[in-house]
């Protein structure tokens, strides 16, 4: 058993109002630089819709993630040999137009324009070429709130897969928001796609990063990631990606997107997992089993054996305690209401989603007279086709989605009965039974999902620098004889420059 800790996130989609505050604050912190104007480490998509970049879920085109051939995992875009043969041209890489051509406005014209008959205007100007654009035709949220309607929605690969017709009439349609960041996968295909070995997963917290000194700009990571969350900086000619705001998480603070989320939909916590089981878990035959097999790699942080092993392997006490308090553990493992995005990519993603319930409940009109059982058909007849959610979150397994939604409905029924009354307790048990959950759990869920405070939503242990080897050297001090490096220790002949 090789125990590793992973900082993970849950997003509760029911609470997402699609305000893009996460995207904007993230952009202001990380990607407001030349070469990165088109990049959004965090973006919020309106679903159904093609997302950003356009139709990123089209794995036949971008060839992201893993496939199983003869029981073995292979990169969908081809292994190392085929990558080296294709290194001069990456056939599956997205172009700028798949994202969008970033633009600004010529605001100076508003100020500097000479006196004329007509009011001066700020014309859009490309941030790639510096030329004026007559009219921008696509952006990262061009289809926000179903703008584009029946013209744009069919570009969604999940919609193309649906048997059912999706109603686009205003009164009949549905939508939901899907905020996305890098998944910091347990089995990241971007890391395996990098010819230079520049991408890596950190031992301490599982954050996936790009070593900017080692990256040579071969670009296989950009489409090797099935979530399309590794980006090419055309200015430095290197790959960059969401870094889970590691300078903040190391200090025990939540990521910028989580901190600024007005709906408080995001939860961050630690999970302990067995790194030896990752490959096996990603290699199960049926994609529908991937959700359960991913859950099987996580370890119970209360199990004394796990605790002993973890401490033995250098996982700090505070990390184990955080794993026990982890809201992610509760939602993903204990209550099983949070689901991984597209488990069929076999990367074992670590940003989890609680599917939205509101669009179902909003069309129940007689809720005060409804029995608990009455909610079961409501879940089954929801406006968002269950297949659509299943296509996003459970590799097309609708039973998983149904169970989560029943739990959410049961929570709603129970809390409603508790506060305003009106539900027959006898009948409630039927819903509870189908949802497979207890009253105590429902109340815990309601607290975490509804009223949890900052320190319950974000349980992040600090990076423990004091445990580092050679810490005194890193601080530039060497006062004590014992701390001198062992003889023969490898040191660099030249210190590499920083910031160049």
């Amino acid at each position, binding site marked *: 058993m*090789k125990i590793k800790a992973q900082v993970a996130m849950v997003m509760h989609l029911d609470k997402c109002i699609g305000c893009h505050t996460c995207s904007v604050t993230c952009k202001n912190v990380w990607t407001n630089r030349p070469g990165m104007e088109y990049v959004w480490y965090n973006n919020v998509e309106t679903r159904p819709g093609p997302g950003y970049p356009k139709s990123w879920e089209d794995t036949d085109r971008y060839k992201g993630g893993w496939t199983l051939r003869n029981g073995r995992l292979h*990169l969908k875009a081809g*292994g*190392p*040999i085929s*990558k*080296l043969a294709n*290194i*001069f*041209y*990456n*056939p599956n*890489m*997205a*172009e*700028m137009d798949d994202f969008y*051509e970033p633009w600004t406005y010529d605001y100076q014209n508003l100020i500097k324009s000479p006196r004329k008959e007509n009011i001066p205007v700020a014309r859009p100007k490309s941030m*790639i*070429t*510096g*030329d004026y654009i007559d009219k921008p035709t696509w952006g990262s949220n061009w289809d926000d709130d179903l703008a584009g309607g029946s013209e744009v929605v069919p570009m969604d690969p999940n919609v193309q897969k649906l048997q059912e017709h999706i109603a686009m009439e205003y009164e009949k349609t549905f939508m939901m928001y899907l905020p996305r960041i890098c998944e910091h996968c347990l*089995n*990241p295909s971007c*890391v*395996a796609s*990098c*010819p*230079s*070995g520049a*991408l*890596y*997963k*950190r*031992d*301490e917290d599982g954050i996936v990063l790009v*070593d*900017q*000194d080692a*990256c*040579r*700009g*071969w*670009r296989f990571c950009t489409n090797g990631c099935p979530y399309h969350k590794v980006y*090419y900086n*055309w200015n*430095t*000619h*290197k790959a960059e990606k969401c870094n889970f705001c590691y300078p903040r998480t190391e200090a025990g603070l939540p990521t910028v997107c989580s901190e600024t989320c007005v709906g408080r939909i995001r939860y961050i916590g630690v999970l302990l997992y067995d*790194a030896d089981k990752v490959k096996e878990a990603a290699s199960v035959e049926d994609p529908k089993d991937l959700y359960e097999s991913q859950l099987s790699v996580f370890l119970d942080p209360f199990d004394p054996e796990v605790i002993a092993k973890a401490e033995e392997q250098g996982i700090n006490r505070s990390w184990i305690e955080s794993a026990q308090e982890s809201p992610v553990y509760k939602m993903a493992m204990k209550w099983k209401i949070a689901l991984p995005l597209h488990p069929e990519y076999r990367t074992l993603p670590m940003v989890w989603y609680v599917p939205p319930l509101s669009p179902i409940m909003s069309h129940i009109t007689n809720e005060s007279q409804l029995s608990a059982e009455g909610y079961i058909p409501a879940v089954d007849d929801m406006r968002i086709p269950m297949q659509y959610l299943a296509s996003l979150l459970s590799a097309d397994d609708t039973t998983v989605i149904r169970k989560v939604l029943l739990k959410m409905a049961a929570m709603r029924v129970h809390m409603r009965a508790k506060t305003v009354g009106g539900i027959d307790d006898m009948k409630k048990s039927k819903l509870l039974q189908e949802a497979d959950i207890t009253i105590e759990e429902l109340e815990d869920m309601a607290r975490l999902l509804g009223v949890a405070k900052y320190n319950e939503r974000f349980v992040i242990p600090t*990076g423990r620098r004091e*445990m*580092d*080897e050679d810490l005194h050297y890193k601080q530039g001090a060497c006062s004590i004889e014992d701390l001198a490096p062992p003889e023969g220790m*490898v040191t*660099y002949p*030249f210190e*590499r*420059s920083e910031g*160049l």
Partner: protein
Amino acid sequence: MEALLLWTVFPYICGTILIVATFYRFIYRGKSWTAPSTEIFEKKWLRIGSIVFHYGIIFAFVGHLMGVLIPIEVYNSLGVDDHTYHIFAIVGGGFAGLMVVMGLIFLLIRKFSFPRVKAHTSFGDYFTIVLLLLVAGLGTYMTIIYNTTVVAYEYRLTIGPWFRSLFTFNPVSGLMLGVPTLFKVHVVLSFLLFASIPFTKLVHMFSFPVRYPTRAPQQYRARDGYRKNEGNKL
């Protein structure tokens, strides 16, 4: 004088610049060391230009290894007579040279004609393409036209031994004096190209990821051991 300046001092200056500046850039300007792709701006022309050029230049490189680095004695002892050698050299080399030239022309046109690419093409990028085009164009002309119409020049007796003698620090520069002017220009321009490598995007050739097929697919690094060579791998 020509033997001293052009065929002794000049190559060593170029070689020194290549080695010293390459190491300097790798160590002190590490973050500028990439294959500066513009694929995100334009794909269709790149597909043709880049693939044809890169495979062409690999063939050409192998051809130069065979023609310049391997002594003529080796061919003689293997029983490859001059006629056979030159047929192979002209056909193979001509093909590789044409690929390089065609690829470069595609890439150069691409640089001009797509506004997004053009906006992100520096002087160094144009310089590299033009110099490469001169070197490769001359080489291809020599291989295909000069060798078949004038004379199949036996560079394995002059340029080859001279080039090898540079590495033993005992240059026999006199060998270069009787070489046809076309070949001389090709050699001089090539050395200029070598000297320009560390200052242009050409450095990416030293980073061809040969170790990729043998390494573990998943890379783990401890924050603590970030700069300790490899980090620990699963």
